[in-house]
């Protein structure tokens, strides 16, 4: 039991932190809706002008950038989710020789930052004639995402009672069917959380896109935004509108999957 005072303090602290987290976001959204021309200072309110968003969309060519980002993010999420589920299943529930060593090898992908591998990666992809293609963005990000995803799904599969898998085996289900019919329905919160996280990281990736693609048609949204910022430094409202456009897909996806996301993040923390 918590006392009333403790409860008030908890709410006050949570409120303060929420405010701290929301202020910059609210500031950008409000700025994006202010009178065009960049006159308004950050966060100042002088009416609602949704036209800024349309102007930024057209001037900044965000339609193409978002399409590029969507292609890359969808491909990365699809590849990483499929492989992570399969690898996590194997590492979490199957016994095979060398599984520990192999799992730690997978984890390397989590530990090495993009900055550390970007230069050799560039040369490798150039040798394979993959630079300036979507593959140059999809393959490296799928690789690092699989490292995280495998770690994430293995942790989930290890929480599943072993007897459930054994019951399915005795009932006549193959490994594949056990995964598909018995485990995946249970794994939905964990899988959807992984999808949101991988989508968000892929969507926001900047360095890789900067180094690997020069063709404007392949530019992703964060890279496009950066070029847009360079061209419109004086117009704060337009910059904010660009930022809002680029951030919106992640927010929308999160809003859709929010319920599962929270459940996925706390699963295993409390015994159900």
């Amino acid at each position, binding site marked *: 039991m918590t006392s009333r005072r403790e409860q008030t303090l908890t709410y006050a602290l949570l409120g303060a932190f929420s405010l701290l987290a929301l202020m910059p976001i609210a500031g950008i959204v409000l700025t994006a809706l202010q009178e065009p021309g960049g006159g308004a200072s950050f966060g100042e309110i002088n009416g609602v002008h949704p036209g800024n968003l349309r102007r930024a969309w057209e001037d900044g060519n965000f339609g193409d950038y978002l399409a590029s980002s969507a292609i890359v993010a969808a491909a990365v999420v699809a590849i990483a989710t499929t492989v992570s589920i399969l690898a996590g299943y194997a590492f979490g529930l199957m016994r095979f020789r060398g599984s520990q060593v192999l799992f730690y090898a997978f984890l390397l992908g989590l530990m090495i930052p993009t900055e550390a591998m970007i230069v050799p990666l560039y040369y490798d992809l150039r040798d394979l004639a993959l630079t300036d293609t979507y593959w140059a963005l999809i393959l490296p990000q799928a690789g690092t995402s699989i490292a995280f995803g495998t770690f994430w799904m293995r942790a989930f599969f290890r929480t599943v*009672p072993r*007897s*459930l898998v*054994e*019951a*399915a*085996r*005795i*009932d*006549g*289900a*193959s490994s594949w*069917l056990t995964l598909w*019919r*018995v485990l995946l*329905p*249970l794994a939905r919160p964990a899988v959807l959380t992984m999808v949101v996280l991988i989508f968000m990281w892929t969507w926001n990736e900047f360095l890789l896109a900067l180094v690997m693609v020069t063709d404007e048609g392949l530019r992703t949204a964060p890279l496009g935004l950066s070029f847009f910022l360079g061209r419109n430094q004086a117009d704060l409202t337009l910059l904010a509108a660009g930022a809002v456009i680029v951030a919106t897909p992640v927010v929308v996806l999160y809003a859709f999957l929010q319920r599962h996301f929270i459940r996925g993040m706390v699963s295993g923390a409390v015994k159900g």
Partner: protein
Amino acid sequence: MAAVRFSGVRKRYGDTVAVHGLDLEIGDGEFMVLVGPSGSGKSTALRMLAGLEAITEGEIRIGDRTVNGVAPRERDIAMVFQDYALYPQMTVYDNLAFGLRRRRIAKPEIDERVRRAAAVLRLEPYLRRKPGQLSGGQAQRVALGRALVRDPQVWLMDEPLSNLDAKLRTQTRGEIKRLQQQERTTTVYVTHDQVEAMTMGDRIAVLNEGALEQVGTPEELYERPANTFVGGFIGSPAMAFFAAAAAPGDGGTRLTAAGIDLAVPGAAGLPREVTVGVRPEGARVWDPDDRELVGPLAGEVAFVEALGRETFVGVDVGEVRLVVHGEGRSRLVPGERLEFGLLPRALRFFGADGRAVAAG
């Protein structure tokens, strides 16, 4: 239905041997209980039979078939797990039908078998519910139903009652026994609870530290334990033991130990040093007119367990604690002095190695 045979089955995990050369035959349609304390290897033996653990050495046969390398799904067995292992996202109906669908049985037959099992186990009102919406007893019945619908050669049950409360456990115990007698499916049932073993099994196999101590009917195990371990494990309250010197005398055998001096008729051929085992019903409050009793022995009452219809009284005699059985309630209180006698026919004798020795 089929007989099951373990021949020299061993299971080793690294340097630890979980099961030492198990030899056990389970008859067609028999209800065999594997009982033993934690770490006795009973669950490992069951899991090897299910195909969930590989066998290090030996052979397991189900019917005419050696199943050592056979996958669990091809062994034609069904298993009830301690935690029920119901598929949480499926309805009760789908849980029951899952195994049948995997075997590509025709839909109308699946439906018929599921509904028949549901009727037998009184699960009809819950067929559309998911396991999360069931009580412990209902979930347990679904787990049993899943084994029942499959109509396999062997039912395997791994401590299926241990998550139920005492009342439900007694009720479900009867239900499983009834079901098994009705279907006559060969059943291997693992438990650490000797009451379950005694009340359910046609025969009981007692395991200890990976070795088989004795196999027999509940009566055989209770009346003629092969060693002190079985004597102490089977029966509640447990058999009490004391070490005594045995010597011929007074036309029978004289048993002496600290605070104990008994002239037991017969009991010839005992070694000089024996361990005497006494079950509670082999000790009664002293009555000079009771010709069956030998004694008296006297000691201080250590505890009184009054169960209503009967009472067990723990009495410290020297360094030994014996349990005395009495009908009805007792007015005894701890600390009191009690005189009691033993029934010679109820005494069991064990040699220095703990094995039973026959007394003439």
